[in-house]
């Protein structure tokens, strides 16, 4: 899940709602899509800006951990695939910033909030990619977890967000397959490669589980977002689904999920598994993950170093427009 702990405005009881709010909620309940120029409660707009913005930021910060291995990819083909994948993430960022712009907030404004630490991105991208196997683990687990959240969001109530998710999901499922292909190659490779694959699974398992956000009982913002269909499933539902899907994939690779208490529960038709260390999650969210400073620092540097470039293009566009106007006189 690329949006965690998205704060939403408090839930209102029906009797507290204005007639406009009631009509809006009824449209959502009927499964209608809300489009940019239509009336919406301010809380709905704000919550969506937070969620879509956080999602967009996750895509662009998410370029960094994988970008870290592009220049070290082991073959020309792997290099090309990884580059194409990271390029897709930048594309996802573009769709999502565009979706946010339909809500009246510009990409530059959102970037400034990110750079000032006032908006978050997914906790997962604050973990380092230490070996080539991490390219497999990120594709398989991180994109896998993202898909788990994003597939239902294709049905989200806000039209532009829903349409962005449909495009993104198509590409993400390709990403997950390429990650799994990297893992498969390693798992079937030399003993050192297999060890590398296991090590990556060990490091990325719990951070991937954290991507769905805290347990439902501690998740304070869910109710209103679910009523508005900005959020479709609860954190725990999605996490369970992810574990149930991923464990057999790990077994197929011959790798061991790093959870001694993992076992199939026939009664619930799913796995019982250990919770991640939530204190670690809150540390990472608070800015104390292994890479928070580096990731945000890299984005801020790219933005600041690029200011002259963006200014130059703007100045040229103004000059060109002035010349055209003069020529037309």
């Amino acid at each position, binding site marked *: 899940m690329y949006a965690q702990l998205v704060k939403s405005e408090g839930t209102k009881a029906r009797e507290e709602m204005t007639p406009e709010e009631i009509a809006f909620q009824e449209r959502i309940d009927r499964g209608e899509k809300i489009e940019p120029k239509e009336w919406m409660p301010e809380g709905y707009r704000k919550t969506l800006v937070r969620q879509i913005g956080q999602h967009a930021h996750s895509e*662009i910060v998410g*370029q960094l951990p994988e970008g870290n291995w*592009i220049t070290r990819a082991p073959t020309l083909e792997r290099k090309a695939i990884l*580059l194409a994948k990271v390029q897709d993430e930048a594309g996802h960022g573009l769709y999502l910033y565009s979706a946010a712009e339909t809500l009246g907030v510009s990409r530059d404004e959102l970037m400034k909030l990110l750079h000032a630490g006032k908006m978050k991105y997914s906790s997962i991208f604050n973990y380092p990619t230490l070996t080539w196997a991490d390219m497999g683990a990120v594709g398989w687990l991180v994109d896998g977890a993202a898909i788990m959240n994003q597939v239902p969001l294709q049905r989200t109530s806000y039209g532009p967000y829903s349409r962005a998710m449909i495009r993104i999901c198509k590409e993400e499922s390709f990403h997950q397959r390429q990650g799994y292909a990297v893992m498969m*190659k390693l798992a079937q490779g030399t003993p*050192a*490669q297999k060890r590398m694959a296991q090590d990556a699974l060990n490091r990325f398992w719990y951070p991937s589980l954290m991507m769905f956000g805290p347990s439902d009982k501690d998740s304070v913002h869910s109710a209103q977002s679910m009523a508005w269909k900005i959020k479709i499933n609860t954190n725990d539902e999605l996490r369970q689904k992810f574990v149930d899907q991923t464990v057999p994939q790990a077994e197929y690779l011959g790798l061991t999920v790093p959870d001694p208490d993992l076992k199939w529960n026939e009664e619930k038709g799913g796995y019982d598994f250990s919770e991640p260390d939530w204190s670690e999650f809150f540390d990472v969210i608070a800015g104390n993950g292994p890479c928070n400073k580096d990731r945000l620092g890299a984005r801020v540097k790219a933005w600041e170093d690029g200011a002259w470039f*963006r200014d130059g293009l703007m100045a040229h566009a103004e*000059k060109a427009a002035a010349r055209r106007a003069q020529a037309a006189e």
Partner: protein
Amino acid sequence: MPSLPDMTTPQVAELARQQAQAHPAHPTVPQPDEGQEALFETLLRIGDSALVLGHRVSEWCGHSPALEEDIALANVALDLIGQTQLWLGLAGEVEGQGRTADDLAYLRDAWDFRNLLICERPNGDFGHTLMRQFLFDAWHHEMLKGLAASSDPRLAEIAAKAGKEVAYHLERSSDLVVRLGDGTGESHRRMQQALDALWPYAGEMFLGDDKDAQMAARGIAPDPASLRAGWDATLRHVLTEATLQIPEGDFSHKGGRQGIHTEQLGYILAEMQFLQRAYPGASW
């Protein structure tokens, strides 16, 4: 440090003679065909330039000044890596030693690389990266036009495909050079600085040697010097519109196409080849 034993020149010559007698060249092994060797070299020269520049461009991924640039640079790098696979794949075939494109990219040391020096220049600021790309694209475009008319259909085919991609690279880099050259005072200054700094690496693109002469004589590849006029015309057109001054000096660094590189290449290869070197023989 122990000193080396004294050896006189006649002693060395005698040793060499004895060695030659003890291990005579196997009579059935054919001497390498000089034409094939020159062709192999030509393919490395174009393939290695694509590989090394593709590597440099890919270093920007996630760090460029705007999302659109991240996407565009990734496209350029992807094209160059794709071209590398074709050129080095054919080089391996021509060499006939069973080496693949990956073997050539990941298992040669710096002195066996044949890329132009300009490709290995560090990225610098975004203006340096764009100017390097423009100077290279303008040459690459001419080179591929020449190769598309090659008497060897294998080269002509690759060049025709790559030429379409590079026409777009040149369009994009020219456009940005114009906008930034004729943008703000600062963008103009940075682009001029980049042009001045990279200028001494441009001349190498047009310096031929006897291998180039062989290829040109057989109609396989264009004579490097013949590409200069087209390149000059592109530069004059674009740089004038960009309000940038073409530097006056004609000094040129050279050696990349003969395997004598800048210090930069070793670091590029250390990074690029790390996994192949650390896990020999593994499959990825």
